[in-house]
């Protein structure tokens, strides 16, 4: 089963009519993954004998019988979960993340776990213990990261929908690089219980699909309060599919000049075309400024790394995960297990975080970053007082080559300059395909105020209808 021309509605119709059985769909999906993953390496674990849930009701749940990919930092009961780290190479969870329980209840089929940068730290999926994932549009290019496996799996037609996580752009940047839709919901919209923690004030689980409406269907299922995660809002979750098919007349669209200046001429042209389409349909376009944009990369790397250095203290080789051999004493177990279990990028982040939080650096780095974060949030509040959405490019360039940036951490960090702010401010943000630049996809980013995913879906669906990017087939999958 190849999903390049399918969506959740089309599959649901086939399942409901009996033209396709959920068993066959599960088997064919696994067979196709095994075949196409020789090219992509998008998966860490594939469930060979994946079976649909019993007593599926295709009229009650759109996700009944639909195979969904889960990023490998989301805990799945009885399916190995590694976060792409040697540290968790043998970790077998004995419970499900809340999002997984909710998908199970809706009847989704679990076919495996997707590749990522180790502990979600990276922008290329090259920092994986299980090897790099390849971009379906050009196998020599990165799929972005850290949810690069989920993005490549969707773009390459292996599944129709995948869960990802986004701490600084890890859903949106790979979505942009692979020509698919990806949404990071508002911080507090989706439970993070069972998500392996990276930066706890920034992490959010979200959805990646080829079609905008499919993400709305999945978000409908995974959103909402959870007694296991007290950061999830108790406010009501709207039916996000209601925002599909609406017109954008009168929609107030802000375009930050710093975002448009961050990209070159070819890319700006593609992004401007999407903005012009909104304008032609009656949206009101306002040029705005996000004056702290040049500080978001340092701000994010201090905050995220500080939180990571604290969250990753738990990996000590004692209760689960990798334990080093030939150790003299308890301290030696900690140090050796961590030094052998973590990859280079994870060590860099832990070191940066420990440094920023250490005596003598705390005020100058961590506290200053927390204050600058307030100024970044204020910039958004000002814009959203007079606008419904902010749009601009998702990334500064299309996907780069495998091996091109991996040895230069600062260059790699700067990839995230346009996506990080949404995590710092906790606002919903998505990337929808805008077009091709030199044969590679680029994305239009759409942000809205907290808990206003509705306007994000409305705008993204309009863009999807106007440029019909989904009709294109990834060039690396043709043969």
């Amino acid at each position, binding site marked *: 089963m190849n999903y390049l021309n399918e969506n959740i509605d089309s599959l649901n119709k086939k399942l409901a009519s009996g033209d396709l059985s959920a068993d066959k769909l599960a088997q064919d999906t696994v067979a196709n993954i095994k075949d196409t993953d020789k090219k992509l390496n998008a998966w860490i674990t594939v469930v060979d004998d994946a079976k649909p849930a019993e007593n599926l009701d295709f009229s009650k749940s759109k996700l009944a019988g639909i195979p969904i990919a889960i990023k490998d930092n989301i805990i799945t009961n009885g399916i190995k979960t590694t976060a792409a780290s040697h540290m968790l190479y043998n970790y*077998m969870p*004995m*419970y499900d993340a809340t999002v997984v329980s909710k998908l199970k209840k809706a009847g989704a089929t679990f076919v495996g776990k997707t590749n990522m940068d180790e502990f979600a730290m990276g922008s290329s999926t090259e920092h994986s213990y299980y090897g790099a994932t390849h971009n379906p549009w050009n196998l020599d290019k990165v799929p972005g990261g850290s949810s690069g496996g989920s993005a490549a799996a969707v773009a390459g037609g292996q599944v129709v929908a995948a869960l990802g996580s986004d701490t600084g752009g890890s859903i949106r940047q790979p979505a942009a690089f692979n020509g698919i839709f990806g949404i990071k919901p508002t*911080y*507090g919209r989706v439970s993070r219980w069972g998500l392996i923690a990276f930066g706890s*004030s920034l992490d959010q689980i979200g959805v990646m699909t080829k079609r905008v409406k499919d993400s709305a269907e999945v978000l409908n299922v995974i959103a909402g309060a959870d*007694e296991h995660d007290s*950061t999830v*809002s108790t406010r009501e979750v709207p039916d996000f599919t209601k925002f599909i098919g609406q017109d954008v007349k009168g929609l107030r669209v802000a375009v930050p000049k710093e975002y448009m200046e961050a990209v070159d001429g070819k890319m700006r042209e593609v992004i401007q075309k999407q903005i012009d389409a909104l304008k032609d349909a009656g949206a009101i376009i306002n040029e705005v400024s996000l004056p*702290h944009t*040049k*500080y978001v990369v*340092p*701000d994010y*790397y*201090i905050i995220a790394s500080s939180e990571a250095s604290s969250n990753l*203290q738990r990996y*000590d080789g*004692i*209760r*689960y*995960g990798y*334990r080093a051999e030939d*150790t*003299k*004493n*308890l*301290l030696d*177990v*900690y*140090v*050796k297990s*961590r*030094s052998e279990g*973590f990859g280079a990028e994870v*060590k*860099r982040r*832990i*070191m*940066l975080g*420990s*440094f*920023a939080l*250490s005596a003598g650096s705390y005020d*100058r*780095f961590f*506290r*200053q*970053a*927390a*204050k600058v*974060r*307030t*100024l970044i*949030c204020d910039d958004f509040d000002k814009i959203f007082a007079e606008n419904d959405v902010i749009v601009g490019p998702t990334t500064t360039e299309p996907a780069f080559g495998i091996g091109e940036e991996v040895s230069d*951490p*600062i260059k790699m*960090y700067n990839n995230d300059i346009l996506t990080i702010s949404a995590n710092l*401010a906790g606002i919903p943000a998505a990337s929808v395909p805008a077009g091709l630049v030199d044969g590679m996809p680029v994305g239009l980013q759409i942000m809205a105020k*907290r808990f206003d995913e509705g306007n994000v879906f409305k705008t993204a669906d309009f863009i999807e209808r106007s440029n019909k990017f989904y009709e294109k087939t990834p060039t690396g999958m043709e043969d």
Partner: protein
Amino acid sequence: MEITKDTIKHVATLSRLAFNEEELDKFTDQMGSIINMADQLSEVDTEGVEETVQVVDRDTVFREDKPEHWQGQNRETLMANVPEKANGYIKVPVIINKDEDE
């Protein structure tokens, strides 16, 4: 801001990580440029600005402190990932050196 090898050694100790000399040299260079990039933040005037450390829309959430039988799991499955165990307990190495112990 100059980052010395000693700073990196100190931070490695705090992080419970060990590096060999070659790695230390590489990390000192890399961390030096990353920290200097991060130090750009000191340009920003934050006089009188409050800190933002979370963006949650709820106050502290309380719950009753009572045990519950969790997802039908038993002790054995909860211990399944423990690298070394004995008599139903997690086994850890000695805290003092093995040779000192003898």
